[in-house]
């Protein structure tokens, strides 16, 4: 008997442990994602193994990641634009050294580069020199920038996502975040009217026999893998949009919205229909007894009554759309620019992670930036899950 009771306790313990797996997983996801992402704000602004050198007299002693990029793209050409003296910026890369010195002066084995680099920096007040670390002389005559850390503002407020830019990679969240929101919003605007209409039809209008046929078909729509949706979008919707709107490329935000809209439909329909079915029969009958038609009952009683359910359906649909990866990756064209219309290529957060993680070396800034994107995505979906929890509790 004792053995038996012990066994019972043992099994209960095992069950409890199994029950805690999901919670532990969430905890681990948070831990690992944030651990990797935190490294981003500890990583240097300047490409690994390189330094930037400036003249000692230059009052500018710090540059942000974005400023460096603008300087090297020749968008900023004068130091006074970034708080320095009135002095034209002179951008010098390692290969440009031959413009200032002959090959003999630099040495056959380039052994004189450290000395010459130091000399050049000291002579030119407006210089910014991009140099591999090994060519920095011990007694370098100038300001060296190499320990600059990426600021949270560079990530959360950055307008450009250009992770392979040299000398300073750009990890700006905004274009990707806006792309994600843009595509998801388009998707929900397309699918919500359809979703609610189908839910009303299934819950209130259709005969049981019709419903029994339609419902499994709609559930089948949820079962189709996202990569198949992406494929379908790529070979059907993308060329269609290109021809209809006479676009240079058909891979646009709109293509993503359409595909995501179709994918979000089953979720929206199921949740909204459940909400409508939960309207008490007595409430419905009261409305009908007062002489309202079925249609009046639907839009005056059933829809207002299931408002919170319909809201959850919409929010859940948005959540699905925001996190969807493969289909979006295949049809939106993946241009990391801030979108202005639905007919431009965009890039979403999940698509960026999927497309770039394979190329980013483990532990690099790029790798960490992708994990930071994962954190943002995780937080967005967490907020959505929790808000649904609250919407669900709120009774009309």
């Amino acid at each position: 008997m004792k053995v038996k009771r012990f066994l019972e306790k043992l099994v209960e313990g095992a069950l409890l442990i199994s029950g805690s797996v999901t919670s532990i997983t969430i905890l681990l996801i948070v831990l690992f994602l944030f651990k990797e992402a935190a490294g981003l704000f500890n990583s240097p602004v300047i490409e690994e193994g390189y330094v930037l050198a400036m003249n000692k007299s230059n009052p500018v002693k710090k540059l942000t990641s974005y400023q460096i990029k603008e300087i090297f793209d020749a968008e900023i050409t004068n130091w006074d634009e970034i708080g320095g003296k009135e002095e034209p910026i002179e951008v010098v890369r390692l290969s440009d050294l031959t413009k200032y010195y002959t090959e003999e002066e630099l040495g056959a084995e380039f052994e004189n580069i450290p000395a010459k680099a130091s000399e050049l920096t000291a002579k030119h007040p407006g210089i910014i020199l991009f140099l591999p670390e090994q060519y920095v002389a011990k007694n370098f005559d100038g300001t060296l920038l190499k320990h600059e850390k990426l600021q949270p503002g560079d990530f959360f407020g950055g307008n450009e996502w250009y992770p392979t830019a040299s000398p300073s990679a750009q990890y700006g969240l905004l274009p990707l975040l806006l792309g994600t929101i843009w595509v998801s919003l388009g998707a929900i605007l397309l699918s919500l009217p359809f979703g609610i209409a189908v839910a009303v039809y299934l819950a209130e209008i259709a005969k049981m026999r019709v419903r029994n046929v339609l419902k499994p078909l709609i559930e089948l729509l949820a079962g189709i893998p996202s990569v198949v949706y992406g494929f379908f979008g790529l070979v059907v919707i993308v060329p269609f949009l290109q021809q209809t709107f006479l676009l240079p490329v058909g891979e646009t935000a709109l293509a993503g919205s359409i595909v995501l809209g179709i994918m979000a439909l089953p979720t929206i329909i199921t949740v909204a229909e459940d909400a409508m079915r939960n309207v008490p029969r007595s409430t419905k009958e009261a409305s009908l007894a007062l002489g309202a038609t079925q249609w009046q009952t639907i839009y005056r009683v059933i829809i207002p009554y299931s408002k919170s359910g319909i809201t959850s359906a919409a929010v859940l649909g948005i959540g699905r759309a925001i996190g969807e990866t493969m289909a979006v990756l295949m049809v939106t064209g993946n241009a990391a620019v801030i979108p202005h219309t639905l007919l431009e290529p965009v890039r979403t957060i999940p698509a960026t992670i999927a497309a770039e993680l394979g190329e980013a070396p483990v532990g690099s800034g790029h790798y960490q930036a992708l994990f930071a994107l994962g954190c943002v995505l995780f937080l967005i979906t967490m907020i959505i899950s929790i808000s649904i929890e609250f919407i669900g509790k709120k009774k009309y």
Partner: protein
Amino acid sequence: MKKEKNIENNTNSNNSSIVRGSNSSKRWSQAIAFTIFKLMSYSVVAILILILGFIVSKGIGAISWDFLTKAPEDGMTKGGIYPAIVGTLYLVLGSSLFSFPIGIMSGIYMNEYAAGSKIATFIRIMTNNLSGVPSVVFGLFGMSLFVNTMGFGDSILAGSLTLGLLSLPLVIRTTEESLKAIDFSYREGSLALGATKLQTIRKVVLPMAFPNIITGLILSIGRVSGETAPILFTVAAYFLPKLPTSIFDQVMALPYHLYVITTSGTNIEASREIAYGTALVLIFIVLLVNILSTILRNYFSKKVKTN
């Protein structure tokens, strides 16, 4: 008296004419609204049929015995998808080995031991949250934990565990729902006969819930076999001519195969035929899973009734 009746008749007829007038406009708006709803519902079904029909009609030509049993050739423009099919089977098997036992046990705990308690509510919230986590985040997590930290490398093991975690919420939820559907009197009857709680669960509750649980498990297999993002960085290989020999090997997988040959293959146009075929195989798995679960559900529910 007569006058009064007349007046009554008058008012009545007046009333009814008013009602009739607004009734017809009411009826019209109802008819229009219902027609719109009906059309929209059928158009959703039409979309489904369009997608399925398109892929079936384009893909059916690619399907042959060789296509299903041979490895890709000539930079994936010829040959078959056998390694990808095998890889997906391994991943489904591996993830099921992980998620089924844990998911079912977790569901049992929530419904039989902790029903209504704070722990159960907490677990349910966490499970719901987990099911809302995007699949690409699972991919990141799997890469960070299983591939790098635990050192499994890109392997069937890492991929299966990642996919297993992804399907866990679905398994837990179906188990819990199936158990919830069983009337409490059965448990009380068993307990009253002197059975312990564990015996009751094993001999009474689980066998009754079994059909519904199985249906849920089959659906989760369908979900796992189509997932791409979680396996991108944990297991999937672009091209592997040989089959895996251990759980630490990489494999090809159907969804990933479809993705690479449509977007980054060496010759995208030439691989189109293979892509349609691969998409069809994926769709076929989904259809099979759905039909199988429906049949099983019907079969078992009949059996329970006759018993």
